[in-house]
C-alpha cells in the first residue's frame, strides 16, 4: 500500500510558524511539521501536548535513589557488616555520594531509553524520509492526502499563499504517523 502526503516547503521558520497558526485557525488538520532545528512556539501552535519525559525522569530518579540507598544499607548493615575503625555499619553521610550518583545514573539512562523508544530511534531503523532537505534548510508542513486527497489542490494553493516556496506530493511505502499519533 502507498500513502500519499502533501508537503508545503518553507525556507524559514518564521513563515512556517505563522502558516501553522493560520492553517489551524482555518480548521485544517496538520499531519506533522518537519524542521532542521526545533522551532520555538511550534508546540502550542500545532496543539502538541507536553511531553511526559520529565515525569519518567522523576520516576527513574526516585528508583535510583532508593536502589542505591537500600542496596548499600543492606550490604553494610546485614549481608557483610565490617568494622572500619569502629565506625557504624550504617554511615549515612558516607552513602550520600554514591546515592547521588545512582540517582543521576538511573534518571539519565532511563530517560534516554524512553526517549529512544518513544521516538522510535534505533541503529537498525532506516525509515523512509519524506523530504531530505528538511534536515538541511527546508521546513515542511505535511498534510495527509488520505484525509485531504480531494482537496489537494486547494491546500497547495493555501500553502503557497502562506509563503511556501515549494509544494509537492510524496508517495510513501511506510505510514508516517501524525504528530498526535506519536503520543506523549
Amino acid at each position, binding site marked *: 500500500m502507498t500513502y500519499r502526503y502533501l508537503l508545503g516547503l518553507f*525556507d524559514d*521558520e*518564521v513563515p512556517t*510558524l505563522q502558516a501553522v497558526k493560520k492553517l489551524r485557525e482555518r480548521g485544517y488538520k496538520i499531519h*506533522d*511539521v*518537519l*524542521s*532542521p*532545528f*526545533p*522551532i*520555538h*512556539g*511550534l*508546540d502550542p501552535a*500545532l496543539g*502538541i501536548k*507536553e*511531553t511526559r*519525559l*520529565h515525569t519518567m*525522569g522523576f520516576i527513574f530518579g526516585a528508583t535510583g535513589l532508593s536502589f542505591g540507598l537500600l*542496596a*548499600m544499607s543492606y*550490604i*553494610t548493615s546485614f*549481608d*557483610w557488616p*565490617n568494622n*572500619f575503625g569502629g565506625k557504624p555499619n550504617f554511615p549515612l553521610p558516607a*552513602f550520600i*555520594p*554514591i546515592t*547521588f*550518583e*545512582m540517582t*543521576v545514573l538511573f*534518571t*539519565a*539512562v532511563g*530517560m*534516554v531509553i524512553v*526517549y*529512544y523508544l518513544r*521516538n522510535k*530511534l534505533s*541503529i537498525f*531503523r*532506516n*525509515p523512509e*524520509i*519524506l523530504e*531530505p*532537505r528538511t*534536515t*538541511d*534548510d527546508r521546513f515542511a508542513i505535511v498534510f495527509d492526502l488520505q484525509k485531504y486527497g480531494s482537496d489537494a489542490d486547494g491546500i497547495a494553493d493555501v500553502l503557497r499563499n502562506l509563503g511556501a516556496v515549494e509544494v509537492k506530493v510524496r508517495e510513501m511505502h511506510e505510514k508516517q504517523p501524525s*504528530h498526535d499519533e*506519536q503520543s506523549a
Partner: protein
Amino acid sequence: MANQYFSPVRDPLILGNKTYAQITDDIAKHAETRPTGKFLLAFTFTSLIALMGVLSILYTIWKGIGVWGENKTVGWAWDITNFVWWVGIGHAGTLISAILLLFRQRWRTGVNRAAEAMTIFAVICAGIFPVIHMGRVWDAFFIFPYPNSRAGEGLPGLRSLWTNFNSPLLWDVFAISTYFTVSLLFWYTGLLPDLATIRDRTKGLQNKIYSALCFGWKGTAKQWQRFESISLILAGLSTPLVLSVHSVVSFDFATSVIPGWHTTIFPPYFVAGAIFSGFAMVLTLMLVAREVMDLKQYITLNHIESMNKVILLTGSIVGVAYLTELFMSWYSGNIYEQWCFNRNRIADPYIFGPLMGVEPAPYWWAYWSMMSCNVISPQIFWSKSMRRNITVTFIMSIFINIGMWFERFVIIVTSTHRDYIPSSWLYYTPTWVEAAIFIGTIGIFMTLFLLFSKYFPVVAIAEVKSILKSSGDQYLAKQAQEDQTERDLQGGGSFAPAFQRDKE
C-alpha cells in the same frame, strides 16, 4: 527563536552572512569528503604516540608496577596526577554543554559539540590510570559491587565479599562511571539530528553508515519537542553531576590525614581548577580546529573571548584557593601543615628559601611552575586586546594545561615524598615507562579527537542554525539599522552597536 527578543548590542556569533544551507555545507563537508594528506599525516603521528602509550601500558602490566618510579613514600605519583588532570580536562565539555545551556548562553553552540567529545575522550584517558595503578588489572572488575563468590559460602546474596562503600576511592568509581555514561548519552543524543543531516546528503556506503549512526532521525515536531526536553533535563542532571565528580575526586585527598591533602577547600578548588584546565584544552583544540577546518565564522573571536573570561575567573578562583591553603596551614597552628605548605612547597632556593631561613624545598620548581602558569599568567586576560589575541590565547592555553598538571603533581608528590620520618624521605623521579604512558594518553586523546572531527559534525549544526536569527551578523546588522531608523524618527541620537567594532 523568531519570537524572542534579542539585544542589538550583542556581538554576532555567526559571521559571513550565512544561510541555513551554507551552515550545513560548511560543517558537513568534512565528513563527506575523503581524508586529506594533512589529516592522514596528523592521524599517523598521533596514532603512533597512542601506540607507544598502549605498548608501555602492556609492558607495565607484564612486568608489574615496579617499572614505575614510585617508591614506598610516594605510592601515588604520575598515574593519579594524570588521572585527576584528565578528569579535570573533561569537565569543560559538560560545563559548556550543560551549565551554559541552562544559562541560555548562545555562544556555547559553536563549541559545545567539540567540548562534549573532548569530555568523552578525556575521561577514557583518565580511566586508564587508576586501573593500571591497581597492578592486577585482570581483577579490576572487582571495583564494582556485585553479589559474588569471593568469600564465605559463595552463593549470590549470601556472604558475598563487597566493596567498601565508605571509601572515597569507591565513590570515585561510581562518580566517574556515571559521569562517563551520562556524558556519552548526552553527546550522542545531541548528535543524532546532525548525523541525519549528513545521511540526507550522502549516497551509497556513506549513506548506509550514517543511516545506522543517526538511528532513523526524522526531525518531526514531536521528536524535536522530546529532544529539547531531554537536552534540558540531561543538562540539569549533568550540572550537579559535574560538580560532584570533581568534588569526589578531591575527597580522595581531602578525607585523608596527610598534611597537604587534608584540606577542606579541595572540593570547590578542584571544581574551579577542572573548569580552568578544561577550558584551556577546549581552546587548544578549537584554535587548531578553526584554522584547519575553516570554522572561523562559527568559532569567532567572541567565542574565544568568552572562554578567556571564564579562564580568567576560574584561574583567579584557583589562585584564591592556593592562598587560602597557605593561610589555613599557617593559621591552623599545626606544625606539620605549616611545614608541608610553607617549607616543603614554596621554599625556592633563590628568594623565599633564604628569606625564610630554610633550605630549599626539593620540588620548589613544580610549585612555582604551578603558581606562574595558573595564577600569574592568566591575569593577562584582564586586557581585552589580549583576550582577543589568538596567539596569546593559544600560548596561554598550553601554559594552563601545563600549570594544572603541576597543580596535581604538587598536591600528590610534594605532600608524600617527605613524610613524618626523615629517614624514609625519598625524591621521586618518574621512569621512561610512566612518561611514555602519559604521552601515550595524549596520543590516544588526539587520535580520537581527530577521528571525531573528521567523521562527525564538529560544530552542532542544528543548534547553530537555531541561533542564526538572533546571532548571525546579517540579522544583527539589519536589526541595528531598524533600531537606528526608529531612533531617528523619534529624534534620538545615534548609537553604534557593539558588534560593528571588530569583524574578523
